[in-house]
């Protein structure tokens, strides 16, 4: 089978088309899906193929997310389009108190096979209310799975896995990566949830990252290599469930770890990961686990300030040196 270069957008559309053709209980619900194929064009071509299963709603995020929950409880597999990940705040009760709890709280009587698809991240100068990475909020709440892909092939494979999964999955897709291209096989495949992947092999330090920062880390690794440091990059892909076995395997080899994400460092997933590595792998570690993330302010608008607040390649290089105490 041939391998094409596809963007994350096209990889996503392909996943949706394949799944919706396969399973008639899948439908997409959200705002502005039909006329432009989604605000990022992510659903282009699908309304024509599945006119009854792509539902444009009023601007009512609470009801949209709640509708996903209710439809999942009654035999459907909804995909909820959150418009922008920042808007999860308008449906937090539906996500945290309903979606995450209903199965457990009712003693396992129900299942909630749904995907909440949320485009997140900065880099578009969209400022404070349209740029956030909020994945760690949902990792913290028991009952939700959290997916954070970086490459087009994973967008496709993980989205298919998320759709087929019988549990609620929050699928964060980075806005700045919609046009990012990468190889995607024509063969049908699935990328299972909860499996990390090594993007670059190395022996000196393990860089744990996900989503857009994977690309920043690759660039940092090239610079580090020039300085004689071989970094291993692990793209976590899924934060819940977390592939800690792969993380531990790499750290056993490198004895050093750096966590890199775009979300604010304080209270971010890096803190959880750092704590767990320290608790479980303390004797292996040759230095502190270093966290790299955004500075602790809302995202400012002006491009120069946005860049300043976000982690940059040189921050990652410096972070690795700090971890190695060089």
């Amino acid at each position, binding site marked *: 089978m041939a391998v094409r270069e596809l963007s994350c957008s096209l990889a996503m559309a392909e996943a949706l088309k394949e799944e919706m053709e396969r399973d008639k209980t899948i439908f997409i619900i959200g705002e502005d899906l039909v006329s432009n194929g989604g605000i990022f064009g992510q659903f282009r071509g699908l309304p024509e193929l599945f006119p009854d299963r792509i539902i444009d709603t*009023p601007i009512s995020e609470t*009801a949209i997310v709640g*509708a996903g*929950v209710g439809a999942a409880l009654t035999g459907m597999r909804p995909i909820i389009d959150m418009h922008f990940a920042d808007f999860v705040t308008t449906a937090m009760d539906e996500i945290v*108190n309903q979606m995450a709890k209903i199965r457990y709280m009712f003693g*396992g009587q129900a299942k909630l096979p749904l995907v909440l698809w949320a485009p997140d991240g900065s880099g578009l100068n969209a400022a404070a209310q349209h740029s956030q990475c909020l994945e760690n909020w949902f990792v913290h709440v028991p009952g939700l799975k959290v997916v954070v892909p970086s490459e087009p092939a994973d967008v496709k494979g993980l989205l298919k896995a998320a759709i087929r999964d019988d549990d609620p999955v929050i699928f964060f897709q980075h806005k700045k990566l919609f046009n990012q291209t990468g190889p995607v096989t024509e063969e049908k495949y699935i990328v299972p949830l909860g499996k990390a992947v090594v993007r670059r092999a190395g022996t000196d330090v393990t860089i744990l990252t996900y989503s857009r920062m994977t690309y920043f880390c690759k660039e940092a690794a090239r610079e580090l290599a020039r300085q004689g440091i071989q970094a291993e990059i692990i793209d976590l892909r899924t934060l819940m469930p977390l592939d800690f076995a792969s993380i531990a395997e790499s750290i056993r080899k490198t004895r050093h770890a750096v966590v890199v994400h775009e979300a604010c460092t304080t209270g971010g997933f890096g803190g959880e990961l750092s704590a767990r590595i320290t608790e479980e792998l303390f004797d292996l570690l040759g230095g502190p686990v270093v966290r790299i993330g955004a500075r602790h302010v809302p995202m400012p608008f002006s491009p120069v300030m946005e860049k300043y607040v976000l982690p940059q390649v040189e921050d990652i290089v410096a972070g690795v040196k700090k971890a190695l105490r060089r």
Partner: protein
Amino acid sequence: MKISNLEKKALLRKMVEIRLFEEKIGLLFQQQLIPGFVHLSIGQEASTVGSCSALRTDDYIISTHRGHAHILAKGAEPKYMFAECFGKVTGYCKGKGGSMHIADFSKGILGANGVVGGGFPIMTGAGFSIKLRGTDQVGMVFFGDGASNRGTFHEAVNMAAVFKLPIVFVCENNRYASTSPAEKMVAGGSVANRAHAYGIPGVINDGSNVLAVRDSVAEAVERARRGYGPSIIENETYRYKGHFEGDRQRYRTPDEIQQYRLTRDPIDRFETLLIDEGVATQKEIDAMKTAVAAEIEDAVRFAMDSPLPDPHEAMQGLFVNP
């Protein structure tokens, strides 16, 4: 809506079952045999039983924190409900839900919801699901006067009206949202009034008249079933007990409660009607009440005798695929 004498007697029996269930829960709570807190709906039986009697088993309901009655009226069994309230492994939710979170999906009971107004958006989803699957089921979401002030209500009613979703919104206006009187908190005079803004029917019923409720709700259910969309039903009712058991109820007088009990009690009224109509005799009704009381005692015994969950069970059932 036509109703046989047998069905009338069944309505009375269900109201009595709910009353005795709730009284028993109150007593067991006082005796500190039920952990947590409980919200009783004694006094509201006609609203609940009348509404659920218009539904089929495959129709859906979503209930509230004050939800025992809805769940019983939709066909759940008292013994598993008591067991759940005791936190026993034999309960509907294996002891993970408790009084405020009981569900029985096999009876279309999509759960009581501990968040006031939490059920509205979920029922819109059931509505979409019904439409997409092409069945003629109906969803009924119960709520109080207080919940009608949440944004979830307005988003869901608008959504249901826009898409003509098969949903009946049943407000049980018991006059108090926790401690706050409805007349001080609900703008526009009534909850049913709000229906006009969304272009759907809004009806106010005497919520202590089980047949009036049944007729009015049946019309809304039929409308939904035929694809004409949602309605709002407001049953004017009253709760005799506090917001929760132990509530000191400084917001109303004992006289007010007594007045309702004496003049508008849904069970007393329906009993009198059935005797006047010659549908049942006092002797028959007394015998039925004795039988229901014995069933309730049996159900409590089942729950009492059931084992507690193994604490490790707490780690089971979060995900289908962990």
